[in-house]
């Protein structure tokens, strides 16, 4: 029990529960299946990106360029699908490859220069996005092929409602779930995952233990890139159109969710469960505010407050524990 009380996931879970209870009392619409199915579907994109960012933070890095990666990956997919072949497998393969390549480029530059990752990825965010805007001319892609639309509209679960439309759970949520399982497996069951924790914790010691810092860096940024590519597909599937300026600008939402979920920007700490809860907490707060009819300006205020509270509480807890151990 005391072990559970020490875990940050416990407190985020508690917060999710509390907000959930308050919201369902204030607004009955909140606790309906259709609201929750929508909520999951709408947050698949953020949820997948957050998992990538988690891996990066755990390894002691940070990446803010993934929105550009997702945009580029999504757009190239759109071009291939509309202009060449409308194959649904290509819709995943291409963004995956583009994502891994751009992520790997980040990793190489970060490793070779030793410049803090935040600086490098701010640079590549602008580089990737700027080049992309120049080449695409900012044109939207509307006519995504039939196969893609069908995939996007597939539901894995449909529940009939008495006296109303049936509610359905989108297949997109399945991709989020898949990313959760894979990320969890990598971080907790593979030697690479554990080495990432170790590297984020103490890079010098990781070097001394014989770990290849380059390979680990390459892995974490490529994995982030890969998930960014997939998230790009999710976003396109959700909106049914590819809009060049839809994604860039949401970097901080993703970072916020991961940090709320208990990951440390100093590396070595963070969990998949915490990250998922972080995404859900942000999602229900915003969802609740929408349902309650609160102006959208307040959404940022709420996000900011939650981050502050989480960070302050974590700092206090660490300080207390430090005081106890000395």
């Amino acid at each position, binding site marked *: 029990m005391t*072990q559970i009380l020490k875990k940050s996931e416990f407190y985020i879970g508690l917060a999710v529960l509390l907000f959930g209870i308050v919201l369902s009392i204030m607004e009955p619409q909140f606790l309906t299946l259709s609201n929750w199915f929508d909520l999951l579907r709408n947050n698949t994109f953020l949820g997948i990106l957050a998992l990538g960012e988690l891996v990066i933070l755990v390894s002691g890095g940070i990446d803010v360029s993934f929105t550009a990666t997702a945009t580029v990956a999504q757009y190239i997919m759109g071009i291939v699908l509309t202009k060449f072949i409308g194959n649904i497998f290509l819709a995943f393969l291409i963004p995956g490859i583009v994502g891994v390549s751009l992520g790997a480029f980040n990793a190489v530059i970060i490793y070779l220069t030793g410049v803090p990752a935040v600086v490098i990825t701010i640079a590549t965010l602008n580089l990737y996005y700027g080049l992309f805007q120049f080449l695409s001319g900012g044109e939207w892609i509307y006519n995504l092929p039939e196969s893609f639309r069908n995939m996007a509209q597939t539901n894995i679960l449909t529940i009939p409602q008495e006296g109303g439309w049936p509610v359905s759970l989108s297949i997109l949520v399945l991709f989020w779930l898949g990313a959760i399982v894979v990320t969890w497996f990598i971080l*907790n*069951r*593979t*030697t*690479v*995952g*554990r*080495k990432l*924790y*170790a590297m984020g*914790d*103490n890079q*010098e*010691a*990781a070097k*001394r*233990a*014989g*770990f290849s810092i380059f390979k680990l860096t390459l892995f974490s940024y490529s994995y982030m890139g890969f998930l960014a590519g997939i998230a790009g597909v999710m976003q396109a599937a959700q909106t049914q159109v590819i809009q060049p300026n839809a994604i860039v600008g949401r970097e901080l939402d993703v970072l916020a969710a991961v940090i709320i979920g208990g990951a440390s920007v100093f590396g*070595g*700490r963070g969990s998949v469960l915490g990250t998922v809860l972080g995404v859900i907490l942000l999602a229900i707060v915003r969802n609740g505010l929408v349902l309650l009819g609160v102006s959208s300006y307040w959404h940022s205020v709420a996000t900011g407050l939650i981050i502050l509270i989480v960070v302050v509480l974590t700092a206090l807890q660490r300080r207390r*524990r430090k005081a106890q*151990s*000395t």
Partner: protein
Amino acid sequence: MSEDVLLEAEDLSKYYGGVTALEDVDISIKENSIHGLVGENGSGKSTLVKIITGVVTPEPGADINFRGDNFSELKPVEAFQKGIQVVHQDLSMFSNLSVAENIGMGQYIEQGRILVNWDEHKKQAQSSLDRLGVSFDLDTKLDELSKADQQLVAISRALASDAKLLIMDEPTASLTQEEVNELFGILEELTEKGVSILFISHRLEEVLEVGDEITVLRDGNKISTVNREEASKKKLSQLMTGEKVQFQRRLGELESEKQPLLKLDEVARKGDFEDVNMSVAEGEVLGIIGPLGSGQTKLARTLFGMNPPTSGKITIGGEKVRLESIEEAMELGIGYVPEDRLTQGLVLDQPINDNLILTDLDGFSEGLFNLISETKQKRFVDTAVDTYDIKIGKPEDKAISLSGGNQQKIVVAKWVSVEPKLLILNRPTHGVDIAAKDNIYKLIADLASQGMAIVLISDEAEEVINNSHRIRIMKEGTLTQELSSSEIGEEELYEAVMEEKNRV
């Protein structure tokens, strides 16, 4: 101790550009023994260790024999697999990971291993903790353990990788005396289980206590290997410095009874220390000695306004003061040289000259816009470098480029520039070599003779005896007896500190 040799290395040399790091050094470590390695900073200890662990390639001609195999150089992986393990001074552990994972981490670098075997982690961790004769909860995160326990985990990790030669770099630097004794017991036991230990330490008395043989390096050369029986602290110091070093008492006698400058009456800070009564007069050095972690640092921080006291009365020059901030303390003429110069005393990435004027920026500013006067700065820096014999390249070099002893001189010198009335020195010679130590002692005596009141916190008996007028023992958050430094010997004081500790 058997007579069989575990590691025999001959003709180890290493040159960096024109600089000799190590020249024709031989070392022979017997099986089941503890081999001490001493030398001043820059004497080649770390180069030697790096060659033995394969991190650095020696110059051609080297001959290394480990457990019967000959090498002209070792690769890191080779050294690791043969059973050469290092417990670094900073431990090189992972604070967010569990005890079990920290110990069992070796499995991650096995060829072709993709999946983690958590059971194996636990089994391995348990067996190497057992071998060491200690016990921890395997799921505890490392940063929830004390430094001493973390070190035991670090040793366990080395054992888990089947260490035959365990290299320990300054293992006692952050341990209390009691923990040091415990560690020594454990090390002795390890030698009986077929592990040899290369023990590197600045503290000669510790090397003498555990080392069966002791190798002394100086300026990259091996000076001698001596048996414990033939060695003494004095002899080792001589071998290390090449000259007969005996720290002399440089401190002048106090002229007469002076009014105390700083006086503490029943001062306490909840949870840190209590019932502190002390005083120090102008020109007087008050030594405070006690086991590490007895509250000395907390008291020092309180005197410097960092942690205001929760009760009691502090007067300076007869006037009651509150000491609620560092600014206030500095205005009252208090200076503080913290124990951890690397994180608290220096801006390592900044030039030496900027570091030197950091405490007194106002004093170096002039003109309408209060800009730093480069002339003033240069004049002060030149004087300081000269007066305190600081060995620097250029004043514009970064502070991190200097050796520990020279860094420490800068920390002290920057305080002296503001001419404080009261200077608090917290373990000022921690981790510096003998020559630098002597320089710092000279400085303390000079400052005292100029009328500065000094509080010297240290855990070395010899240091407080030679460099203070009066000595107070601090233990478990309170100052106990007062001793006169002229009336007590090193052994006696050391025993007094220990006895104080055992009484509870």
